[in-house]
């Protein structure tokens, strides 16, 4: 197999003197939807923060053939490693249109208008609401806006942290369908989720994290039948 898009090997990271991630390894290949699941406090968000270079880390962190470790947050971002943070983190007193524009804020190429059309075709509701203040929208709409803003950066890998958090199941289903569309447009996705059932419905491969370590990994169809995973995350009903 050719080199993975994202390669993480033996990664340790944390906040100051508090280590959170231990010897973590993970890959994302082109065209994949990979999900990282685990309970609250497992270190999923910390991993994304390390990938976006917001916190220091040791180990191997390669993206698109390049070492990420020496880069500042802007560096990781401009190389196409773009994340939708947990809790959306929109600019609340700016319009949808302005939020989307902030995603392309560092882009100087001519393709921005084209990307905007693509985002509007993925999220028609955002086109309707483009003059509305982001802070006044529903949770689902805010998540769409946050995902659209990330896509405006023309990512090579889209990382989404807790996409389903606080959203009604029917909205989550819509967003999962849109993830497949995004992948179909050639953008791989790393989806961090607590809702394992939702994540498994769309992902190709999965990593299960517990207290800063990867404890299970593999194809979703295999993990969905792994008794340990089923017991801990999918419940008896599955």
């Amino acid at each position, binding site marked *: 197999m050719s080199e993975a898009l994202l390669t993480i090997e033996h990664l340790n990271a944390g906040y100051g003197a508090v280590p959170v991630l231990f010897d973590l390894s993970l890959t994302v290949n082109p065209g994949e939807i990979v999900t990282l699941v685990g309970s609250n406090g497992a270190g999923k968000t910390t991993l994304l923060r390390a990938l*976006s270079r*917001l916190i220091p880390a040791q180990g191997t962190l390669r993206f698109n053939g390049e070492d990420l470790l020496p880069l500042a*947050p*802007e560096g990781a*971002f*401009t190389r196409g490693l*773009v*994340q939708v*943070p947990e809790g959306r*983190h*929109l*600019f*609340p*007193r*700016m319009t949808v249109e*302005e939020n989307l*524009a*902030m*995603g392309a*804020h*560092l882009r100087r190429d001519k393709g921005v208008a084209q990307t905007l059309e693509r985002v509007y075709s993925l999220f028609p509701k955002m086109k309707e609401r483009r003059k509305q203040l982001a802070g006044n929208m529903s949770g689902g709409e805010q998540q769409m806006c946050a995902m659209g*803003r990330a896509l405006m*950066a023309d990512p090579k890998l889209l990382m989404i942290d807790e996409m389903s958090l606080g959203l009604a199941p029917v909205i989550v289903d819509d967003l999962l369908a849109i993830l497949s569309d995004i992948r179909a447009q050639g953008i791989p996705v790393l989806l961090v989720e607590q809702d394992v059932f939702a994540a498994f419905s769309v992902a190709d491969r999965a990593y299960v994290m517990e207290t800063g370590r990867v404890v299970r990994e593999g194809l979703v169809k295999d993990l969905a039948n792994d008794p340990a995973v089923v017991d801990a995350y999918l419940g008896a009903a599955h």
Partner: protein
Amino acid sequence: MVLAQILLNGILLGGLYGLMALGMALVWGVLNIVNLSHGALIMLGGYTVYYLFTLAGIDPFVALPIAMVVMFAAGFALQWGLLNLVVRSKMLNTLLITFGLDVVLTFAAQLVFTADFRTINPSYAGANFPVLGLTVPVVRLAAFCVAVALAAGVWFLLNRMPLGRAIRATAQNLTAARLYGVNPRKLYAITFGIGAALAGAAGGLYGMISNLTPYMGASLTAKSFVIAIIGGLANPFNVILGGIFVGIAESLTALYIGPTYTDVISFGLLVVVLVVRPKRAVRAA
């Protein structure tokens, strides 16, 4: 008629007050720094225009943009080298450091410029013309127009330009702005530079209307603070309106109660606003 003239004077002076507060409101809203050296920056802008006029013979209104460039550079350097060290820390830290900065700038100015009163006094300083029986002083009218024009410029920057969008975004959500490629250190330095440039313009205009002294800063900081709170931090035109409000209130006070009571009224207004609308007072850009 006297009342109409007083109102006109208050409005014209208030426009300049608004410009003084504009830079402070911008820095406050975006960086969450209440810059206690803002008045000292106004003072430095005033002296810059003064010396460009007296030593280089440049017309004060032509010297204004030059002083703004100089003050932008000074403000940028100050934020980059000093204030970035404490930005986003507890407000007490930024209050302390900008207070210290105010003391240093004031006494450095006393050393360099001496404590003498200075006035920027171009040939047209005393010119005025009558409109509907009112006397309109040319310099004050020009100062008012410059203040409104600069407020419009700030509005345009914040709402219509990518740089301004990034400034607002950073004020609203620092985490997201960093994630989307904004370098906050640089953006803060630019914002503080703009605030200092606005202070510089206000200082130059103030020097044509009143006196420049090294000690003028403290009271202007206080006045800017009051106006920034009355006008809010979000919209530049509201800051100008806040300035006009205070300008009118001061003029009426001077007329009916006595000129020594003008500060009582402007700070009385501050107390009233803080009691009546405390939320508005702390709302960010």
